[in-house]
């Protein structure tokens, strides 16, 4: 196996391990260590790290877990991620998590945070609301205080004080992580045949389940490996994925899109590790720095308000241009209010910018890939034909 294939094989086994063995081993290695789970999307990982905890990314159960109990908690018209997350909880798989952070994405996750409080009272559970006002003096000031509250919660959980220097140190590590992640994305946009989307996806997902220091080394090794390796180049079209920032598609779906003739050159899969697009300042007040970075340099998703009508969709159009993409696949989880309410607006703007797009819905446990493959294949053909 090539070096990159080795790395990806390791990532796949971490990603597939729904007992979170890596987190368990990390916790067992030193007495007193704590693991803090988090759901998508705008999570200040630095704070968890600064508390000496392992941030553990929870993205539901995917297509490898049978949901036995979770369905009894949710009506059929609610997306999959909360029910499979509940399944992870009630089946004991998530008992490794001493704390859980539920950041704002939508009302489903918001309410799930309350369910967690009731069902798992021994777990420190925090709903973390991000500002929808982006003025530093208003939303920024609010956010700084929310971070302070988060810090206090983590201090109570761990019994240790988190200093500003602890946070600055974590910011430094995550800045490095984001730089490396951006490099992988930039490399893929340039030579997508060398960095298949499914590989990059696994690399990122596994990264959200391991210590950041380890992920940084892994990313550097992966970059070095793929630069040196060669793979056959196909006549694929270049597309960007939007709408997949929360519940994740099965890995096979990502593979199917590529097999249908589309290179994914940018995406919003599991955005947590790259929602900040620039370095966070390591000088000054670290909470202010995190707050300002969120206000000024966080990616746009349907979970954020866009204050200016003229700006609506611009983020998406610019992402398409920056990645040199020829089209967009707007792929959303079924019943996903945020992505689906946004869809007409975003796709309307793509149309105005003459960017071709298709849209479809998926579930984390979708099994039938044939329709997706056909749709993506037809889309790729039509781009080739008309470009």
């Amino acid at each position, binding site marked *: 196996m090539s070096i990159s294939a080795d790395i990806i094989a390791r990532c796949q086994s971490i990603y597939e391990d729904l007992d979170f063995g890596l987190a368990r081993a990390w916790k067992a290695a030193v007495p007193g260590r704590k693991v803090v789970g988090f759901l998508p999307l705008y999570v200040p990982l630095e704070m968890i790290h600064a508390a000496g905890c392992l941030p553990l990314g929870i993205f539901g159960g995917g297509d490898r877990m049978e949901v036995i109990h979770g369905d009894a908690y949710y009506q059929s018209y609610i997306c999959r991620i909360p029910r499979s997350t509940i399944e992870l909880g009630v089946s004991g798989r998530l008992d490794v998590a001493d704390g859980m952070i539920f950041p704002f994405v939508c009302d489903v996750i918001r309410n799930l945070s309350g369910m967690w409080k009731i069902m798992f009272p021994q777990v420190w559970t925090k709903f973390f609301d991000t500002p929808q006002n982006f003025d530093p003096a208003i939303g920024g000031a609010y956010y700084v205080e929310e971070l302070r509250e988060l810090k206090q919660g983590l201090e109570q959980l761990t019994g240790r004080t988190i200093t500003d220097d602890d946070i600055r140190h974590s910011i430094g590590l995550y800045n490095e992580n984001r730089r490396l992640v951006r490099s992988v994305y930039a490399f893929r946009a340039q030579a997508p045949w060398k960095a298949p989307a499914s590989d990059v996806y696994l690399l990122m997902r596994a990264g959200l389940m391991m210590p950041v220091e380890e992920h940084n080394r892994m990313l550097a090794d992966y970059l070095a490996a793929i630069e040196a390796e060669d793979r056959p180049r196909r006549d694929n079209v270049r597309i960007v994925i939007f709408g997949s920032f929360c519940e994740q598609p099965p890995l096979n779906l990502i593979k199917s899109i590529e097999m249908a003739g589309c290179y994914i050159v940018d995406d919003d899969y599991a955005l947590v590790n790259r929602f900040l697009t620039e370095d966070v300042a390591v000088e000054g007040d670290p909470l202010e720095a995190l707050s300002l970075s969120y206000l000024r340099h966080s990616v746009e998703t349907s979970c954020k308000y866009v204050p200016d009508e003229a700006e609506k969709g611009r983020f998406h159009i610019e992402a398409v241009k920056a990645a040199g993409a020829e089209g967009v696949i707007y792929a959303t989880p079924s019943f996903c*209010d945020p992505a689906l309410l946004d869809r007409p607006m975003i796709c309307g703007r793509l149309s105005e910018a003459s960017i071709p797009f298709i849209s479809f819905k998926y579930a984390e446990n979708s099994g039938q890939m044939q329709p997706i493959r056909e749709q993506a294949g037809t889309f790729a053909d039509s781009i080739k034909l008309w470009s």
Partner: protein
Amino acid sequence: MSEAVKEPSMLMQKEMIARNYEAITSKHETGRKVSSTFVPGNLNELLMCFDIVNNLPEINAIQGGMRKASGGFIMEAEKSGHSEDVCTYVKADIGQMAKGNIAPNGKPFPAPDVLLLSYTGCYTFMKWFELLRAEYKCPTLMLHVPYEGDGHATKNMRDYIVKQLKEVVIPGLEQVSGVKFDIDRLRGYLRASARAEDNLVWCLEQGKNKPSPIDAYFGGVYYIGPIFTAFRGTEDAVTYYETLRREVQERIDARQGPLTPEGTNFNDQKYRLVVEGPPNWTHFREFWKMFYDEGAVVVASSYTKVGGMYDQGFRHDPDNPLESLADYCLGCYTNRNLPTRVDILAKYIEEYEADGLLINSIKSCNSFSAGQLMLMKEVERRTGKPSAFIETDLVDPRYFSAANVKNRLESYFQMIEQKRQGARSAA
């Protein structure tokens, strides 16, 4: 179906609503400005300070549902690319716009001058107004109300809201209306709000009587009408709640139940229920009938708290005007976390001596619905009273299955009977 029989308070409300629609649709003649805004976190007193007329798209969607027009609007919106999965209030609104946007008074709705996005307790609000903004291209003022994730409001949340009011909402409304903000005018309106709120709470609490003189769900949607919409802070609302209180008092004195749409007093109350979730609007009377036909009265509900939880002690406070608007927004029912909702519902069951909890789960509404199954189990565990779960939608007639709902209700009432018999034989 025959025209529903109405009490004086209902007629009064009908007339108030008609006047408000007239004020909205005549804006070009009168020169008044119109805002669109939502029910939870509704800042009616503030809008009044700028002489702005308040139009509420949720209420228009409800009206569309009751007039049986919403089904067509929703299909229209779905045809133009809106997902079948999202809230049908939004689609009813957008579909109605596509079909000429005619107000209940038969005149066209004018474009709003401002969208006041009071973002309280529901994610959908944010995208709903982004969608409307794209259509109307008018100023949009966002008031972000943080969710009470830990079950209480914090100083930081309150400060954040007050700052937005001072620096975003008030200057924005001044600009739209050309009227200077006068905090004493706001205090005056808030004083009137509190008087109306006192009487509303009194009326809602009369559900504790046996027989209950009110129906806190089907009747409740009328009782909350003025205070949840364009009238909180007006003298009209004060008078309305005085009238309502008199009506309720008369029924208590006569040991009578609430009036049904058929014009009879519903006195033979066999089951007392607490209901969680909004009602279905497309089959409202049919739905209500399923309850009183079986002898079930609703003694308390959560839906009557979406526009403010006055029964938990909150009142608008003229001495702290902006802070009290912030507290009001924070405390709306769906802005409270799930454990708090469980506490409230369990408390209602005890205080109103109810037989159990019925959940009407709404397909449209993740804000209410996500987590309701656990909420049901938890309330059941805490109170020892049986619960039941039905599923409908707000304004999409495709999701109202009368036979299913009726079946579920009948088995629920049987369950309550069995429970009672069990308790009797154990005694």
